[in-house]
């Protein structure tokens, strides 16, 4: 465990995951990424995805092969309808492939049940949505600690502290008690990022994370993602913005459901 993460057991039948070490360390104290990892963090082999609506079948992915190493910052780009978001959904387990294999952090997530996926995501993946998807009846602090409430990886009394630190990281420590409707779009997206960081996951995924923000806020948000990558998180994001895509160390282009060479 190079990065001091809580070693949660991912068996969905467990009611109380076993916590090896609590996520109570300040972000700055975490160990740097292990660049000597032998296997990639993410590996897709021959992944296909078809959607059927009525009698129409639409092939979103036609056999995608790609690997992403731990600690990378990768932008997924491509024209509208190319399958970019679908690739992200395959990696997070939000969608299942109709063919092929998806391996993330050593686990074949295409073989996991929905319950196993939910538990796994709560512990290992932070997802940031384009439209924030905050719960309107929870405060910023409560939204930020939601994954911890579901995973129970951290004792109850420690969860607010973890969430508060993440809010501080995204610059919203003073808005912890505000409801989403009291926050701007940019602030809501920061809360969403804080939520994604709750369990200190090794992988951060964003589907157009800045798509609903003005350019200035988008730049600030991207700076934050870069800082998170610098401290060791693998960051993967879909974007239409060429400038933002250019800031990634690596770009994967998807066109017509395939990875473009």
């Amino acid at each position, binding site marked *: 465990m190079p990065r001091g993460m809580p070693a949660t057991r991912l068996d*969905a039948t467990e009611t109380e995951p076993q916590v090896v070490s609590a996520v109570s360390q300040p972000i700055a104290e975490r160990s740097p990424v292990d660049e000597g990892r032998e296997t990639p963090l993410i590996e897709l082999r021959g992944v296909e995805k078809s959607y059927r609506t009525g009698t129409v079948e639409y092939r979103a992915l036609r056999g995608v092969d790609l690997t992403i190493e731990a600690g990378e910052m990768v932008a997924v780009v491509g024209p509208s309808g190319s399958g970019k978001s679908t690739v992200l*959904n395959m990696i*997070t*387990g*939000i*969608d*299942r492939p109709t063919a092929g294999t998806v391996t993330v952090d050593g686990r074949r997530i295409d073989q996991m049940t*929905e*319950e196993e*996926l*939910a*538990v796994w*995501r*709560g*512990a290992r993946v932070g*997802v940031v*949505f*384009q*439209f*924030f*998807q*905050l*719960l*309107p*009846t*929870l*405060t910023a602090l*409560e939204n930020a600690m*939601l*994954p911890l*409430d*579901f*995973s129970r990886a951290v004792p109850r009394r420690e969860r607010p502290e973890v969430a508060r630190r993440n809010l501080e990281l995204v610059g919203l420590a003073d808005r912890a008690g505000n*409801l*989403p*409707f009291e926050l701007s*779009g940019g602030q*809501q997206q920061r809360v969403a990022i804080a*939520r*994604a960081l*709750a*369990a200190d996951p090794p992988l951060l995924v964003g589907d157009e994370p800045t798509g*609903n923000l003005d350019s200035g806020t988008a730049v600030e948000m991207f700076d934050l993602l870069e800082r998170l990558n610098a401290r060791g998180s693998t960051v993967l994001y879909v974007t239409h913005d060429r400038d933002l895509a250019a800031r990634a160390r690596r770009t994967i282009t998807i066109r017509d459901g395939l990875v473009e060479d």
Partner: protein
Amino acid sequence: MTAAVRKSIRDLTRRKARTFFTILTLALAVASVGVLAVPALMAESMEREVAANRLPDVTVTMAPLVLSPADLAALRGLPNVADVEPRALLVTRVWSGERRERAVVVGVPDFGRQSVDVVSIDSGVAPGAGEVLTDRNNASRKSFDVAAGGVARVIGSDGQARRLRVSGVGRNLTNGESDLSNDWITLYASARTVAELAGRPGVTSLNLRLRDDSRAAAERTVAAVRDELRARTAFTAYDDLPTIQEPGSYPGKDGFESLASLFGIITLLALVSALVLVSNTMTTLIGEQTGEIASMKAIGARRRDIRRLYLRTALILGVVGAIVGVALGIALANFVVGYFASLFFGIDAGVSVSVPVVILSLLLGIAGPPLAALPAIRRATRLPLSEALSATGSAVGGQGRLDAALRRLDRIPRSAQIGLRSLGRRKRRNLATVLQVAIAVATLLGLLSIGTGVGETTRQWFDDNDYAVWVQSVQSRPFGAEAEAVSRAAEGVDEVQSWLQNRVRVEGRDAEAWGLPAQPLMDTRIREGRWHTRADVAGAERVAVLGPTLARVTGKGIGDDVVVVTGNGPSTFRVVGITDNQTDNGGALFLPLTALQEALGAPGAVNNQWITTTSDDHDAIDRVTTRVEDALAASGEQVGTLVTYDLREKQVAANGQITTSITILGMLIVAISMVALVNTITMSVLERTREIGMLRSVGARARDVRRIFATEGFAVAVTGWLVGVPLGYGLARALGWAVGQTVGIDVAFVFPIAYVGLALAGTVALALLVMLAPLRRAVRLRPGDALRMG
């Protein structure tokens, strides 16, 4: 088909679950209106039955009188007499298993040529010599299950049992109709067989159909028949006041119409509940389309274009809902009519339709949804375009005082907190659902209360009686002078109290007059004034005690005079007391025995005995009853007996049947409330589909998602119960008052705490059951599919 019409149809088919629930709700609302047809359909069935039976307009009774064909022809020739049918009734007993049950054998001169009060043959053949027909209700309600081909052991007036073959099954509206307190076994035989059983020939009643059935004409005809009989036979006087049927009436009509008025209350509650649900659903439907409405406005649609579009959608819903609802309503009304026709009258009501109610139902169903949608359409079309088009990704919610209060509940699991806080996100819809659950809980509590109250009142009436056996003479004819001594001499008899019962008219209203001693074997329950004294009885004082209903309808009070019309003419009595006694539904008149005898011109006449026994054991009471019956029969008296403990059990059971039937109807309201709850949770799941996807993406397990929505559902259900309890108390009071006003009984008010707990248990259990499907839907959603929806 235009694009607009296609959109309307697609809007409905896009959300199949929501459309289904809306149509179901509307159909239930329309069906509840169908219950309003019940009185009219029942009247229609009864009119057919009355016409088939040729129900008499007037019935007069007398001591056994031999009438020749010429006598009958002379009676038929009287002015205003359309037809006359004689009957010979014998009140006796019949063996049913090891018990002797009260029975009446109706003697029909000629089964093939009946002109009035027809005895129909359902199966088998008309009885010949030594044969009887068994009434169709004997087996189902009176445990007399001797079928056609079997043998009925009927006890004659000489006390000997005769074996009479049962030739078939018959029915008759007047004698066999099941007024629920009538537990006499009814048999039909030839007049000759009855004469043999009675030990004497002669008719005991004449059934008349009149050309002019108005009251005045009927009374003139009664007098004319009396004069004709006096002129031609040994007849002197009628035994009792003639029964004059009100035009359009039928036996048991008053009781049924009183019950039907309670249906009206339930129908109203069901309608209110359903309309709230329809309104709520239309508001949700329109509210969901706010973005689309904004898009249409942005590309040039005017308010009236948008209004027309959604009114069309509502109209489509209305038409489908109305058609389904009308069909359901017809089925429901016919089911209720069929059930009560069988229960009350032992008849098969058939199937019929009330056109006015169908038209009303259709109008309500078609017009309801568009009208219900208007406020929501108005709000949606007036929303500023920018506001409607903006998408924040976080739905609105959490801003009110309720939300602030719910945020304080932070000790419970997060998923439960999310569920509870969701209550504030659709306040109007949740409030409407709370209201519907409350109406259902209130209805159940009100019906349980009234049912228990009716049972309590019934038990109280019987508890007021100090006698074990009530002996009645046949058709109110006076006992002989030795009757009391005969009864007193029977083994096991402790005390015998003789009294006189007669039908009279008081201030133009039919009433039971009881001539009683100063200390009757019953609780007099004097509410105002006093009971009559020994001195009143000794002096045959013209004083009267009124039952509560009689006092109310006549407006008479202490010190007032009442005119009492008997077969012997009018007499004036002074009111000295008002009682709470519920005899004759509170409409009885209690007089000193001697005063009633004097008013009837029948000094010393008594036709009832109350008997107390030396033992309270039921078997002992049965034996005493048998001995008294045999002894009186041997002395020439024709009597029937009522055993208090047995009658009490049967009456309580009969009341239970009625209250159960009303409660079943009340289930309609419970069904609507449960539909509302399913609707609310389903809508909640549908609206928050994307949110469910997000929750699953951040680690929520199936149980977390289930707990979120289950908490919301249970909170709505339990809040509805909380509101429903005080409403139910109020409704119980109102129903008690309504029953008192319509039926004339002062129903005891009971509202046990146990029922409140029962209502909570029922609400929670039903909520759990109806939420299963939407909860299953919520947890089965795949995150990817969920995030793409919404």
